């Protein structure tokens, strides 16, 4: 088409493909816009006619309900938007932790499919088939019932050194009492991370220049821990911990990973890991056999070959489908209401019930999932571009 571009004066004629294309697009956009406007308008009109109140004004009013677990301080007198924020954070918490564990487990399982050991291969295969073929909601419920039933009551909590407790309250653990020292320790850890990253870059550059291999795991790890320790000592080495304390049927103090959180997390991780394992397996299978042979002829061990030659190449194939698994995990976390975890859907359900703003509350849930999904994809696309083979 480029070679046969129509003459300039014909640009506004129906015979010009470009012109027709433009008109079609304008018409399509106008129709969609009109459709949306019409639906929104008549929904509002119909709701008003039936005496159903609408609007997002309720977000500023006090929510009036407590939330079982929250990452930020929240009180029932706080407005609805804050309750939503608590819900969103709970969703993100379970999704983020879930994505990390699902990736680790899925990668191990996917690599396991290539193991020389037939039993390992078989187990990985069986795992994948079992977990990806049972609906995830059932898995969540199964874990939850299992936890709720099997864990001992708080009166008989299993204790580890008097600081960790496993009971129907979940896993209760001590948390440091917040103070400047804790803040400095966190800052130190952050500085350690930056230093570790610089070290890694330097070590890789050295390796490429001289061929000397340095540890890329232990040294950075030590740097981070040292940073945190330094910060902690600089802050006066505070050592007051809020230790959980079982008292009858109630667990006081500390923090806990509740059975609700654990059930959602475990259910999502085990389910998603099965899919990620398949993605990893197909990614590895896509790396041509010659690469393995070339690696071993260079004297790399099997382990090194996998880490340094095969996985980096497989990543190109793995990242896009793994991205959609991450999105699935995040969206599946909306099933958390079934087991009583206060995610954003649960909060929206309660708000919907108390305010009667069905359309608004559902719109908010959609907006939350849309935003997180788009953000995840954007991040993964960026990572994908980095992992892509750079032609030199």
């Amino acid at each position, binding site marked *: 088409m480029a070679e046969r571009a129509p003459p300039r004066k014909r640009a506004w004629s129906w015979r010009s493909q470009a012109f027709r294309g433009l008109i079609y697009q304008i018409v399509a956009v106008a129709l969609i816009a009109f459709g949306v406007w*019409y*639906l929104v308008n*008549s*929904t509002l009109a*119909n*709701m008003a*006619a*039936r*005496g*159903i*109140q609408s609007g997002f004004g309720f977000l500023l009013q006090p929510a*009036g*309900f*407590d*939330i*079982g*677990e929250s990452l930020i301080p929240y009180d029932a007198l706080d407005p609805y938007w804050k309750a939503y924020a608590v819900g969103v954070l709970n969703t993100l918490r379970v999704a983020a932790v879930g994505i990390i564990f699902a990736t680790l487990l899925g990668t191990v399982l996917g690599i396991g499919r290539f193991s020389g050991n037939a039993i390992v291969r078989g187990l990985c295969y069986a795992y994948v088939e079992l977990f990806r073929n049972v*609906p995830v*909601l*059932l898995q969540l*419920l199964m874990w*939850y*019932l299992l936890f*709720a*039933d099997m864990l001992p*009551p708080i009166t008989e909590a299993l204790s580890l050194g008097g600081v960790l407790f496993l009971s*129907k*309250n979940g896993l209760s653990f001590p948390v440091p009492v917040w103070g400047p020292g804790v803040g400095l320790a966190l800052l130190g850890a952050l500085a350690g991370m930056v230093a570790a990253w610089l070290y890694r870059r330097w070590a890789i550059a050295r390796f490429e220049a001289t061929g000397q291999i340095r540890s890329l795991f232990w040294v950075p790890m030590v740097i981070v821990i040292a940073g945190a320790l330094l910060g902690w000592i600089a802050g006066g080495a505070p050592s007051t911990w809020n230790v959980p304390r079982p008292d*009858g*049927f*109630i*667990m*006081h103090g500390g923090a806990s990973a509740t*059975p*609700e959180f654990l059930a959602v997390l475990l259910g999502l991780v085990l389910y998603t890991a099965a899919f990620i394992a398949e993605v990893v397996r197909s990614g590895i299978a896509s790396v041509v056999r010659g690469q393995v042979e070339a690696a071993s002829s260079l004297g790399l061990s099997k382990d090194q070959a996998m880490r340094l030659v095969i996985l980096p190449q497989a990543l190109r194939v793995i990242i896009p489908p793994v991205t959609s698994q991450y999105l*699935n995990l995040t*969206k*599946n976390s*909306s*099933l958390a*209401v*079934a*087991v*009583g975890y*206060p995610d954003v*859907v*649960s909060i929206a*359900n*309660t708000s*919907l*019930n*108390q*305010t*009667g703003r*069905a*359309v608004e509350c*559902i719109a908010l*849930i*959609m907006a939350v*999932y849309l935003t997180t999904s788009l953000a995840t994809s954007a991040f993964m696309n960026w990572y994908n571009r980095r992992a892509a083979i750079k032609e030199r």
Partner: protein
Amino acid sequence: MDLVEYCQVRCDYVSLAAFPRSASAYEHKAFRDGQFGRSEPGKQNFNQVETTHMKTNRTKLALAILAAGSALAIATPAQAGKTLDAVKARGELVCGVNTGLAGFSAADSQGKWSGLDVDVCRAIAAAVLGDGNKVKFVPLTAQQRFTALQSGEIDILSRNTTWTLTRDASLGLHFAGVTYYDGQGFMVPVKNKIKSAKQLKGATVCVQSGTTTEKNLTDYSRANNLNVKPIVFEKQEAATGAYFSGRCVAFTTDASGLASIRNKDAKDPKEHTILPELISKEPLGPVVRRGDDEWFAIAKWVLNGLIESEEYGISQDNVDKLKAESKDPVVMRILGTSEDTGKLLGLDKDWMVRALKTVGNYGEMFERNVGPKTSLALPRGANALWNKGGLMYAPPIR
């Protein structure tokens, strides 16, 4: 899981929210198939139902959500008198009830519904259609109920629903009266030796979402500095299941609901006790849509008629006899033998006679479904007539 699928599982009420009466064919079918509640109310396995629900209705519900969008555009608001005409034309009253709360609304293994809330619908069907069996019961969860009413899927909601200002003023509906004066309570295991709700400091409490109970719990917790941790479930079975497994120290809902749940779902009802504190007022009653005053009046006055009949001693057994013989002007007005009160409501003069023959007066409904002789064994208490020390007071049929 994509967005549509997500919506199917989590928010089937969206589709309802937007449904006008005219676009209800699909939904009616869904309700008939029992897919919006449990198809077998006797069975408690909601996991299975939820999964079948997810699988079989995937496309159907996706369509419903789409249809909801387009249907909005052609929706017209409810008009006066429309509900009565529609019920008559259909030959059937569509009544929203609980998915299963023994004594209030529950279906037996043959699918026959019974309970106090169910009887209200039967009485209205008898008054309007002449037959208390011409009712289709639509089981609804706490979440679904108002949307089902707003959208026109049901003609009346009779499902242990608390009358509150927010519901009355902002959801586009009207409460037709009170069928049961209740209050929110707590159930705890006997073995924990809890004697008062004030001992629940820091305790976990299982609640069902979509009810008035979450907010009451928070209010009570604040007022008494209890700092309880609510664990909120969407389905009643999950909430009670978590409680019975010991995850929560207490379960909270209306005291009547507690009695029903303890009686039906506990392995041994004697292992659980209901604490003395009632932390809220929960006047439960039937609800109709706004914008149809004639229908509102019918619901209101059938209920008033049932209560006033108890006051004047008209019962299921003696209604025929009283109709033939009574010279008491009040009884004559209720039974339509002097003034034609039914006509004012758009019904005929025998409206209350048929209602009473079907379910008896309010006292009989209470005794049969939840009273001391039933397994729920609820005392009449606040639900006794006003002249017997209770709160049941009906404006006169005059």
